[in-house]
């Protein structure tokens, strides 16, 4: 008998939710018709800024899923100063991220020392075939266009120390 007020309260909760949904609409959105704006710093897809990459392999090694594949070869670039020796630089042959494996932890973005990887909020890149989820260098480069400018730092946050 003691439970009855609680039971009635429980019924009231569902009934009130129903009336609220009637009046104000639901908390969900009808996805392909309406889209929710992703929050800032949303982790949608990882973009690659190829010119910054030095093939240091840090991202690939820190990836928990081993979903980043990097291949590179050394090339001789013209020397910086007149009469100097030509420099050896790493030229990127392949930079693939397999989004069928990726778990969006973002460690690769954090660990990149040269700001070559960025988060983009784009999320609509599902494919009918799982093989197409392997994004190669050029596709990852295209995502760069969707990367938003870095948001303002919050008040009182430390500036990055040089």
């Amino acid at each position, binding site marked *: 008998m003691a439970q009855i007020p609680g*039971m009635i309260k*429980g*019924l009231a909760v569902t*009934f009130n*939710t*129903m009336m*609220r*949904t009637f009046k104000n609409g*639901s908390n*969900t959105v009808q996805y392909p018709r309406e889209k929710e704006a992703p929050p800032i710093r949303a982790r949608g897809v990882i973009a690659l800024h190829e010119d910054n990459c030095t093939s240091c392999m840090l991202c690939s090694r820190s990836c928990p899923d081993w979903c980043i594949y990097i291949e590179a070869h050394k090339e001789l670039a013209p020397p910086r100063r007149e009469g100097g020796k030509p420099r050896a630089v790493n030229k990127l042959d392949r930079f693939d991220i397999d989004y069928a494996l990726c778990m969006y932890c973002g460690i690769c973005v954090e660990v990149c020392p040269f700001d070559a990887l960025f988060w983009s909020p784009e999320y609509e890149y599902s494919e009918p075939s799982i093989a197409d989820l392997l994004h190669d260098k050029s596709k990852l480069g295209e995502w760069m266009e969707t990367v938003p400018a870095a948001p303002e730092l919050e008040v009182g946050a430390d500036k990055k120390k040089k």
Partner: protein
Amino acid sequence: MHSLLAVVIPYWGQSLLRVLGGLVAVLLPAGTIVYVFLFKMMSFMQSRLGPMEAGPYGSMQLFAEVGKWLQKEDIQPDNADKRIFRMAPIIVLMSTFLLVAVVPFGPDAWFTNFETGVFYALAVSSISVLGILMAGWSSANKYSLLGGLRAAGQLIAYELPMVLAVMGVVIQAGTMNLQQIVLAQNAGSIFGTDIVGNPYVLTQFVGFVVFMIAVQAELTQAPFDMPIAESELVSGYMTEYSGFRFLIFFIGEFATAGVFAMIASTLFLGGWGVPFSWFGWTSMDSVANWMNVAGPLIVFTKMMVLVFLIMWIRFSYPRFREDQLQRFAWKVLIPISLANIMVTAVLKVAF
């Protein structure tokens, strides 16, 4: 008693009408219940919209679902007892069709006018237990077997309070014929005021509550859905069923909800009738013929109200544990309904 809208219909025509009417009376409520309550009301109670794509406002979703189920592969487990496996869902659905046969929809619009209508309804509703046990055993799956045994235990336990709750109505009406019970409610009066007739939900409120709880348990709806508890038994006795065999179970579940609600509305809310004093009718013969058309609509409305109650409770409460479930039936509902019978009988004799 063979004039529908004052048109005389030959016997074969009446029989055909009854069979078609039976199909409509089972399938139409089932479809409506699934769309209005399972798809829409449940979603709204969870602050979402439910199916929206098929047809305007998702109204064709039901047909899409049926189409999906019909084209699925009909899988039967290797070790299953195939014949029994195939028979089980049909027995469950058959119980529903037998059940609707006694529900009266109007002064002349009934399928059978059984003298022991209430008793018959309670009897055939228990046939579905057999189908459930058969499904559980023949699937050759321990989850199915456990689910089937739980369902049987639950359905037998809640059959008793259901019968006992109905006894109060039978005592008060003095008949087991559902048509006569409708008449007794609509032509009756409470202490001389006959403005709303005498719907037994007022005088038999305890019986009504017990009956609705027992119906909830017989339908294995949410607070009592231990037999198909998906977190421990996958889906109970339905685990191995797919395609149209699952569809039959699904239709059976919601059609039975509708038919039980119709029986409850006949027993406690006055059935197809409106209070006879509104139109100055006194007996069954003086009821106007248009009630044969209005009656089914009235029954349908009352059914929707009761199914709303059932579904509301289903969507609100968490599941009972097995021992709580049995204890509730044997230690709470049965004593209450026995006391209700006693009080009703004493008052019936006293007045």
